[in-house]
């Protein structure tokens, strides 16, 4: 135990340098994925047949293939067509596109769970379709989706670790480097795990706070 603490004190500063990379990768991807996911859900719920089909095909494609394959395809495959992204950008794109597919399905479910009569009531008082969705459907759908969305956000936070495979120097990459150098694989990956755990539980409690903050009786549960 003492040995582990000592090792941690020595290696932590180096390992922590990966945290900003992990977090920026995650935040950019989850936020872009949020908007893309909303658009995809919109297409599936309100779109005509063309948009519905396009969105459905997208979701099937990205949920049906491994994120690692998608990341390799973008980082290693696309350059053969002359489309080149650096490692960080490739990772952001892969995680965004993948996360959007999952977020879209959660959004779709929550949008459909808002009673249709409320949309009709909003239209009946003169709101346009867009206003009714913006002021009546979305505020409820977003509240209802929060528990599932939090889950998805945390899964994506952990998925950033596969960016290590294409050379993004985030937490896992740093741990692996330190491990190769010191040969203390047991300790360094234990430490990396602790860091991930601190990050995921902080995110979970923040999102739990958001849920309680926006609680409305009859719309969500605590």
């Amino acid at each position, binding site marked *: 135990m003492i040995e582990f603490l000592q090792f941690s004190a020595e290696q932590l500063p180096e390992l922590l340098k990966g945290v900003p990379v992990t977090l920026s990768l995650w935040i950019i991807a989850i936020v872009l994925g949020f908007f893309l996911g909303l658009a995809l859900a919109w297409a599936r719920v309100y779109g005509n047949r063309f948009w519905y089909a396009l969105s459905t095909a997208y979701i099937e494609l990205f949920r049906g293939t491994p994120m690692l394959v998608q990341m390799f395809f973008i980082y290693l495959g696309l350059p053969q067509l002359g489309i080149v992204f650096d490692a960080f950008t490739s990772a952001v794109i892969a995680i965004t596109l993948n996360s959007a597919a999952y977020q879209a399905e959660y959004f779709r479910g929550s949008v459909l769970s808002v009673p249709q*009569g409320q949309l*009709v009531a*909003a239209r009946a*008082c003169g709101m346009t379709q867009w206003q009714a969705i913006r002021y009546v459907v979305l505020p409820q759908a977003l509240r209802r989706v929060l528990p599932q969305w939090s889950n998805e956000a945390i899964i994506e936070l952990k998925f950033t670790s596969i960016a290590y495979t294409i050379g993004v120097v985030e937490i896992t990459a740093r741990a692996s480097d330190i491990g190769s150098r010191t040969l203390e694989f047991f300790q360094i990956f234990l430490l990396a795990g602790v860091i991930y755990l601190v990050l995921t539980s902080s995110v979970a409690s923040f999102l739990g706070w958001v849920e309680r903050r926006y609680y409305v009786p009859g719309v969500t549960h605590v």
Partner: protein
Amino acid sequence: MADTPVLRADAIHKRYADNEVLKGISLTLARGETKVLIGPSGSGKSTFLRCLNHLTKPDRGTIELDGVEISDANIDRMRARIGFVFQDFNLFSHLSVLDNVSICPIRVKRQARDEAIRRAREELERVGLGDKADAYPAELSGGQQQRVSIARALAMDPTLMLFDEPTSALDPELTGEVVKVMQRLADDGMTMLVVSHEMGFARQAADEIVFMEGGHIVEQGPPETLFSQPAQDRTRAFLNVIAEHG
């Protein structure tokens, strides 16, 4: 202008596949008039009401509000002038009672927030719910929710109010409070078209009763004559059924 009816519906037709629900319904409402639509379920009353503000689009026929024909181009503006009260209230669940009543004036009429809130409080007082401004819909009884939905419609300063079976989703002991609010509205000179089987309300508040069956208007007239001496056998048969159950 004084002679222009508030509402003029002319030969409204609506068909769902093989089922012709409305076979040419015409009806006018003068300013301050209250008419109550009655008839067996499936007779097309609710469909007709929903056609009036295009919640259901009629296949044929014209609808004029204050002499202006309702069309796809002006529908949102027209709806802003027609209050609609639903059977199942349809309050916005995520908004407080006060926000439910003020959101449409703010978003549709671009009313200043302070002004809309002040007006919303007034309308809530009017339906006897001034003390519930901060509650959420889920915290209210059905009767209270329906009164909020009436306040929500009134806050838009409607030219015309449509009520689609406003008491049929309520427990019997809660219908009274809603009927009382509607009664007072009618007395205050609101122009109202009400689909309802509340015979007490119809008798007291209606200038005219309209009996519909099978997509037609069978008979219409003031409550005192229509209820006591209906001209048509079908009207009499229907009134007997209602009397037995009511």
